[in-house]
């Protein structure tokens, strides 16, 4: 698709996206807040529930849909009276939790959670009558840390916990677990609100891995049975990392096809526009560079080892823009040989193995210095023009994603 397409309503837009997914494995949508992402996701889900003589005679929903807030999957019970047994109540009506009834997912959830946070959780189950059977459904989850039980976790911690639950469930769905039979689509709507940026990156890396599995999924007989995915986000850094992660083809891994759109609603009349953001997305690298510069700020920033990856990814894009196939092109432009060798080694050391990416580990002082030097050289040498917000990093709190304010190209 070239240029800008206009759709007069959500229904038409959904038809377009579903059509896209016939050929692509994945659609990535970027949209600002209040564009209508959430309504779009609901519409997409509902479209998969409509009865259709040929395609869906029973009206079985074909989409597993994740947005922790619209379905209120989790609701706080603060125990205002006793002020001690604080817990997160699960929405038992949501079919999202079906796997939790049948499988012990705690360890999988814990494995993800361990990368981002340091609290423990306990699910409590209750017996529920369902048709002829009594089965145990998860009732609520409580948290503890150190010796303290039933603590209330922060909004950010809660979000990351919910995300981990989602990842655990999603894994089993991709494995073809019974509870999610018949699902063809996965719609992930804005998975990360109120996460700090380092978590945004590691979440994106985890997710990209999962999406790769979705695209190459096989059924029990070994036939190809992909789950098609739509992911929407307003978070530019997250979106950017997603684009880079799914765009990159890791060794020995199959390529996944995807489309990226910038979703916009130009005025209040209910029309939407989609703009493809192809391989030179609407300034992802610039956004990333801005992010990296901020992280590299010795006074305010915090450098994690995964920033090496982000930097490499920008270098890769830059190299390919100039028609070169590898980042050697960018590295050659750097000032001294020693740094080049060091950078290569740092990349290899720090980006190897999943954990380097997933566990946000702060860089050592020597690496920080190296990183700053290379970044400075790189930005100077290639004369990047960075958005105004970046040149005065001290004004912006490290937390606000810069690109939000910048209009689409």
């Amino acid at each position, binding site marked *: 698709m070239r240029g800008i397409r206009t759709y007069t309503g959500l229904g038409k837009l959904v038809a377009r996206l579903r059509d896209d997914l016939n050929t692509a494995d994945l659609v990535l949508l970027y949209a600002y807040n209040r564009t209508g992402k959430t309504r779009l996701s609901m519409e997409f889900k509902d479209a998969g529930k409509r009865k259709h003589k040929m395609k869906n005679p029973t009206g079985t929903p074909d989409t597993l849909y994740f947005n922790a807030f619209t379905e209120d999957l989790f609701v706080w019970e603060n125990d205002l009276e006793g002020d001690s047994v604080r817990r997160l109540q699960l929405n038992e009506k949501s079919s999202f939790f079906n796997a939790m009834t049948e499988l012990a997912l705690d360890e999988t959830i814990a494995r993800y959670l361990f990368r981002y946070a340091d609290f423990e959780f306990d699910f*409590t189950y209750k017996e529920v009558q369902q048709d002829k059977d009594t089965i145990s459904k998860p009732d609520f989850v409580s948290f503890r840390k150190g010796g303290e039980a039933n603590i209330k976790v922060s909004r950010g911690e809660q979000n990351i916990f919910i995300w981990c639950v989602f990842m655990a469930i999603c894994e*089993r769905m991709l494995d073809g677990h019974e509870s999610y039979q018949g699902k063809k689509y996965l719609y992930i709507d804005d998975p990360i609100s109120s996460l700090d940026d380092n978590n945004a990156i590691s979440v994106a890396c985890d997710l990209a891995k999962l999406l790769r599995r979705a695209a190459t999924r096989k059924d029990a007989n070994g036939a190809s049975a992909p789950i098609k995915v739509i992911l929407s986000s307003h978070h530019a850094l997250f979106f950017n990392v997603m684009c880079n992660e799914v765009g990159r083809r890791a060794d020995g891994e199959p390529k996944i096809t995807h489309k990226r759109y910038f979703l916009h609603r130009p005025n209040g009349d209910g029309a939407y526009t989609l703009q493809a953001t192809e391989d030179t997305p609407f300034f992802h690298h610039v956004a990333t560079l801005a992010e990296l510069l901020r992280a590299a700020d010795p006074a305010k920033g915090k450098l994690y080892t995964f920033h090496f990856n982000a930097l490499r990814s920008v270098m890769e894009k830059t190299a390919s823009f100039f028609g070169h196939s590898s980042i050697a092109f960018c590295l050659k432009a750097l000032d001294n040989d020693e740094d080049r060798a060091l950078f290569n080694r740092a990349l290899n050391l720090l980006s190897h193995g999943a954990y380097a990416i997933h566990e946000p580990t702060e860089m050592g002082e020597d690496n920080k210095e190296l990183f700053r030097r290379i970044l400075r050289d790189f930005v100077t040498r290639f004369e990047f023009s960075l958005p105004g917000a970046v040149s005065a990093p001290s004004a912006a709190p490290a937390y606000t994603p810069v690109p939000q304010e910048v209009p689409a190209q």
Partner: protein
Amino acid sequence: MNDQMQKQLGKTLWNIADTLRGAMNADDFRDYMLSFLFLRYLSDNYEAAAKRELGSDYPDFPLDVLLQTGATTPLQAWYEENPEDIAEFEKQMRRKVHYVIKPEHLWANIAHLARTQNGELLNTLQKGFKYIEEESFQSAFGGLFSEINLASEKLGRSYSDRNSKLGAVIKEIANGLADFSSDVDTLGDAYEYLIGQFAAGSGKKAGEFYTPQQVSDILSAIVTLDSQEPATGKKEHLASVLDFACGSGSLLLNVRKRMGPHGIGKIYGQEKNITTYNLARMNMLLHGVKDTEFEIYHGDTLNNDWDILRELNPAKKPSFDAIVANPPFSLRWTPGEAMGDDVRFKNYGLAPKSAADFAFLLHGFHYLKDEGVMAIILPHGVLFRGGAEERIRTKLLKDGHIDTVIGLPANLFYSTGIPVCILVLKKCKKPDDVLFINAAELFIKGKRQNQLGDGSNGTPDHIGKIIETYQFRKEEDRYSKRVRMERIVEEGYNLNISRYISTAEPEPEIDLSATHEELMKLDKQTREATTKHNAFLKELGLPLLPLSEG
């Protein structure tokens, strides 16, 4: 040693752990702590044997006397005085206790180095571990301490940092242990206690290596009963017992405890996690199981890494009298294409990728003796999940292999709160029904974990009730029921316990004649009251209340 002291020792050790572990990761601390405990056990055992071996030649002097000679252990004094006899002595020890420890590696010396804050402590310890691994037990204990990294940065940056840190730990342990006897049972139980405590404290991610004692009690009781006629009681002897996901080995040890020290021919265990595997081996030795009496293998059960289990000659195929297991629940696995033809699975089908529960079950079942019995803990889901699991379940039921289904309460395990069940399987079973036990509602509510009562200290005997119900195949309303196959077929081979045992409280029966009498009485009272009331109304000249027809 009595229960009281037992507890005391456990607590002492746990307190040490609690005060010291802050400085390092709990899992790491566990490994150090348990290894030191193990070394102390090996040392004591060795010194006792040396004393017997050397008889009156053993220079059994108190430490202060020894120290004047420059030795810290009697054995060292003996070594110094009889250098030409050392080789012969060690040969004897190897023959008798299957291992050798050099005097400088003995716990007493290590503890002495720690007390005196000697800079050589770390090096000595390192050499000691290495020596035990490589030179003892004819190398059967290779890698036993492999996960104990004494050069780890976690202990400190420099050698001397690490040295003093470990020194502090060892000093505490030595002091804590000093008052306690070192007989096998004591240390073994203390070890077990610590493993339990560590499991409880280590969170979801790592709690899986431990089966709570109470659940372990049920499993071991079931497999030690006569498999064909449980009612006749406990078996005299088990030729072999296997736990194919043995963790720290506590389940196996529990079976052994029930059978007595000579009741089992050989104990077999397999464990995938290397640290836990080492823990299991130490645990066995600490409980006085000789190195010839058990075989623990480090490898992946689902891949069937263990050579002895892959014997191709059917005549030599290993099989076990009793099999127990608490495999990781709902583990994701990736069966390769060849897995479908694997002898273990080909008659039943492959468990789905999303949950390996049935793969574990079939693995064990394949190696069960015809007259053997297997008890395995799995999530409730295996009772009713559809798809491939339904097919496996159906086949097992049709072939008459599922003997008993026991539903347990939620929240018994550290790793998950999901309710679990015990499946009892047999290759040949006499009754043609399946016994269902709904034990899910009988438990003692705990703060984080629920408990099963064992009848002691005034608790209800939940454990005994389960075992007895299994043993005598008893039926009891809302608790247990023998269900005929026809009925299970009607239910489409769904084993969800609630289909067979209703747990709903029955509506109280209504005594019709009593109710009738009661109503008549009320009616009479109403009429009397109205008549009385109307008398007043009449006097006042007011309209009367209507009287019910009567």
